[in-house]
């Protein structure tokens, strides 16, 4: 079943197209990668899906439901969650609170219950704390539980951001370059987490990543963007052999994967 369907999406900034008639789909349960040279429109595509940008034309459907009229914050409740290319954590909150805030859409008690902090609110806090602890264990974040997110090393912050996105228990998670700036060991760990959250937790993944080794290893399906257009889509092997893709990447620093 197709969980996400992007249909003929066009997005322009002052007349310049960041996305042009782009269409692709993400199968439920898959890891789908969105690749392309710098400025190809990958982040813009994630922003359209998460609601940060509104496409000029085209439709995006999640589980068959049209997303365009849904406010960004309300998309979380439909099962959408994401991380950002640049770290976008709540620096003043502890790791624990960052993950708890990630469950905001899963909680439903209001501010009056917050003020009294009794009964419903307390029970909810206990329950959600338990779910968050599972994610802390999964991502090996226990040593950092009570530290301010802003003070942690870069690699750990990236992991906390993944944890925050996971806390919402999404059906589809959008990851914008989760390995960017990481060393080899951190990259391998992150790849492991992505595989595990896909296989064990059943979360569908849409991954944007420049590390082609990672992309080819993890992906069930690859979509190639260039100048806002979908150049090719298919299995990693098929995309690697595609002539148009080879041409687009020729001379680019990410081109090494073509020869693998």
């Amino acid at each position, binding site marked *: 079943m197709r969980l996400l369907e992007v249909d003929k999406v066009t997005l322009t900034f002052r007349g310049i197209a960041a996305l042009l008639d782009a269409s692709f789909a993400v199968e439920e349960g898959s890891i789908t990668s969105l690749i392309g040279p710098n400025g190809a429109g990958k982040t813009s595509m994630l922003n359209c899906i998460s609601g940060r940008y509104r496409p000029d034309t085209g439709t995006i459907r999640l589980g068959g439901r049209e997303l365009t009229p849904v406010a960004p*914050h309300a998309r979380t409740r439909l099962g959408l*969650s994401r991380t950002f290319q640049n770290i976008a954590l709540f620096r003043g909150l502890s790791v624990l609170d960052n993950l708890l805030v990630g469950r905001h859409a899963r909680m439903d008690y209001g501010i009056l219950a917050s003020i009294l902090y009794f009964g419903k609110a307390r029970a909810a806090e206990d329950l959600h704390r338990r779910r968050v602890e599972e994610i802390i264990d999964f991502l090996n974040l226990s040593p950092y539980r009570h530290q301010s997110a802003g003070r942690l090393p870069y690699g750990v912050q990236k992991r906390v951001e993944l944890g925050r996105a996971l806390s919402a228990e999404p059906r589809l998670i959008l990851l914008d370059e989760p390995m960017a700036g990481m060393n080899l060991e951190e990259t391998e760990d992150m790849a492991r987490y992505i595989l595990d959250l896909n296989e064990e937790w059943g979360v569908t993944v849409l991954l944007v990543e420049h590390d082609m080794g990672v992309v080819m290893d993890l992906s069930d399906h690859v979509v190639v963007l260039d100048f806002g257009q979908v150049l090719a889509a298919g299995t990693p092997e098929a995309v690697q052999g595609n002539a148009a893709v080879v041409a687009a990447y020729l001379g680019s620093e990410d081109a090494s994967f073509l020869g693998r």
Partner: protein
Amino acid sequence: MHGHCGLFFTSYRAEEAVFPSPVQRVWLYAFLAVYLCLPFFLNAYLVSILDLIHIAIIAAVSLNLLTGCCGQISLGHGAFLGVGAFAAGALSAAGWPFPLDMLAGGAAAALVGLFFGLPSLRLKGIYLAIATLAAQIILEYVFLHAGALTGGSNGLLVEPASLFGYAFDTDQKFFYPSLAVAAASLLAVTNIMRSRAGRAFVAIRDYYLSAEIVGVNLFAYKLKAFAVSSFMAGMAGALWAHYLMYITPEQFNIGLSISYLAMIIIGGLGSVLGSVFGAVFITVLPEVLSAVAGAAGQLFPDVSSSLLAMKQGVFGLVLVLFLIFEPEGLVHRWRLVKAYWKLYPFAH
């Protein structure tokens, strides 16, 4: 750094408690017991300072919720207190009993705060500050020109607060209701900050794009911050009205708004305890300066008038020095001292 050395938690609930260790709780109860007896031992002047501190605490902690925690800067907080003060004063004159008129004053301020919070949906930082400054100016104008309700420039006489026929008409008696509301406000903000709404506020402050992604409705939560904060400010204003028993529009001018901002900056932005420190500091400092100026004036009678003028300058100077040397607020210094004693004598 969380909790004392050797303090391990056996449940999440125990860990989340406001005062996690029994030692802390014993200290708190002992402090409260002594504090409750203070009106019997201190003279009226000293108790009056404590009364003013209680009111300042309510105002400061509510502003800290809005500005320190949610990141929505407000230069109109003093006017929101004024709304509560005039509303409670007018209702009290119309025969409403004390705690009810205070709650109604809070509700009136919440409505006004909600309205003037609307620009926060589009404006951030300095632009929002200007918009709330406009709120301050507009409200001052209304206080002055809605004579039927506020008494205009003549001001409004307000009866002392009374409950079941018992009037809180002295500094000593007023200590208890003002303390009760201050304590309730502190508890309310503490509870907000350890639960869903408080996390959403900080999320909006720290990274509003991410806040939206985790499902926080920015529109709703910014307005909630304005409403809750102004509600508490309105209650502080109502207490003020019953305490001074005479309110005028000038009392709620931009200077008052700025002094509340000074409290939370000096105490510590986003910290409940910092709000208390700031309220105490800013309320006590002018009294100390007056006492010093008075004593110096007795020694050197010729300069007493210029000393009084210098008081304002010294007040400003102290604030600036604070911003330079203690930018994270008194609460930061307090934590350092506490950490030092926790490890004593092994600290280096």
